[in-house]
């Protein structure tokens, strides 16, 4: 039986990807951030997950205005990196896990979450930056990845509560898959940031620290946080944090916090990172 062993949360700022691709990780500006991911890189090398269900949002790369799915699961065998306007990132193509992805689709839709199946799509920095942070620059990604895209670009995104409940449905789906697989669920995006208008550059460390604490120890309460609180307190793009709730919902009620990291700034954004183990 497939089992979810751990959850990882991380921001997915595009400039982090550029810093890696351009060999700037040891620059004064970037070194403190990358130091915060050393623990995770060592940890995951030992954990050797077979599959990562990677919850992220597409940033108008695979999905423009022509198609805007709230929840989309990538069921293909392979996904190439997107050209987001400066050429595709020089990272390996992502190898999917069609058997598990299709299984999840069937299970989760019967559990009342209407997923959109995507067989042809590219994956942008939202998905590839977390992989780079945790795995560095390998020739090929060391495990299979199921892209799980959430709309947080066009308002309204799904609520925190719905994301949390979806996480629980994903868990039931994964645990009903017969093959013996070590599965991790990642939630990405955030933390506080705003990329637009005169309020751009908003960072709310107090909100972020509280979020990091509550997602570990009070996810039920945190799930009730309405959209407007994310927008007002954590910036218009801080609402990406609802995706962390999917990761949390897929884990046990009680988890062991292995690692926590918080850093400001990466470009316009506060970076948060958690590693949670099912206990």
């Amino acid at each position: 039986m497939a089992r979810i062993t751990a959850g990882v949360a991380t921001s997915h700022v595009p400039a982090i990807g550029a810093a890696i691709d351009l060999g700037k990780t040891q620059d004064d500006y970037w070194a403190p951030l990358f130091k915060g991911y050393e623990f995770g890189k060592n940890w995951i090398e030992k954990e050797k997950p077979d599959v990562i269900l990677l919850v992220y949002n597409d940033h108008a790369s695979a999905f423009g205005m022509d198609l805007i799915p709230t929840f989309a699961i990538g069921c293909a065998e392979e996904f190439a990196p997107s050209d987001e306007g400066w050429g595709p990132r020089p990272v390996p193509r992502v190898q999917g896990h069609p058997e598990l992805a299709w299984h999840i689709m069937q299970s989760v839709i019967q559990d009342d979450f209407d997923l959109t199946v995507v067989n042809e799509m590219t994956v942008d920095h939202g998905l590839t930056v977390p992989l780079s942070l945790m795995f560095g620059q390998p020739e090929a990604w060391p495990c299979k990845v199921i892209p799980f895209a959430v709309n947080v670009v066009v308002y309204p995104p799904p609520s925190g509560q719905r994301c949390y409940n979806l996480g629980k449905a994903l868990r039931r789906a994964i645990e009903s898959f017969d093959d013996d697989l070590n599965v991790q669920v990642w939630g990405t995006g955030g933390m506080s940031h705003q990329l637009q208008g005169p309020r751009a550059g908003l960072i709310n460390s107090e909100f972020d620290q509280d979020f990091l604490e509550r997602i570990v120890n009070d996810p039920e309460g945190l799930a009730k946080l309405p959209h407007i609180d994310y927008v007002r307190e954590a910036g218009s793009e801080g609402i990406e944090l609802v995706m962390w709730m999917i990761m949390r919902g897929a884990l046990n009620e009680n988890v062991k916090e292995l690692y926590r990291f918080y850093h400001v700034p990466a470009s316009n954004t506060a970076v948060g990172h958690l590693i949670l183990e099912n206990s």
Partner: protein
Amino acid sequence: MALDKPYEDVPGTTIFDAERARQGYHLNQFCMSLMKAENRERFLSGERAYLDEWRMTEDQKQAVLDRDYNRMIALGGNVYFLSKIFSSDGISFEQAASSMTGQTRDEYRQMMLNGGRSPDGNRYVGEEG
């Protein structure tokens, strides 16, 4: 009954809701076209002619030509779509964001290094910052 839009009193912030998504449809789809290298090349070598291929309003086209991101957002643009324009120009998210704030690039960068823009005074329209 009208939709509840509790985000309208957040200062300096435009939420890309249903109304704006409809208004900005062609502007944003023009941006999507810049994900292809040949289109970027064609756009940069003749911006006006390229824009005229899209069913955008004159105001939207002018805002693009002016690289006025606040104006593009007011006319239905969304920053993740608009990022295709500034990426085509070789400009980073940080630089583009700073251009919307009235701060210089250096002032903005320094503000970020100092921990970013505080939410205090920036939660509600009319609140003194």
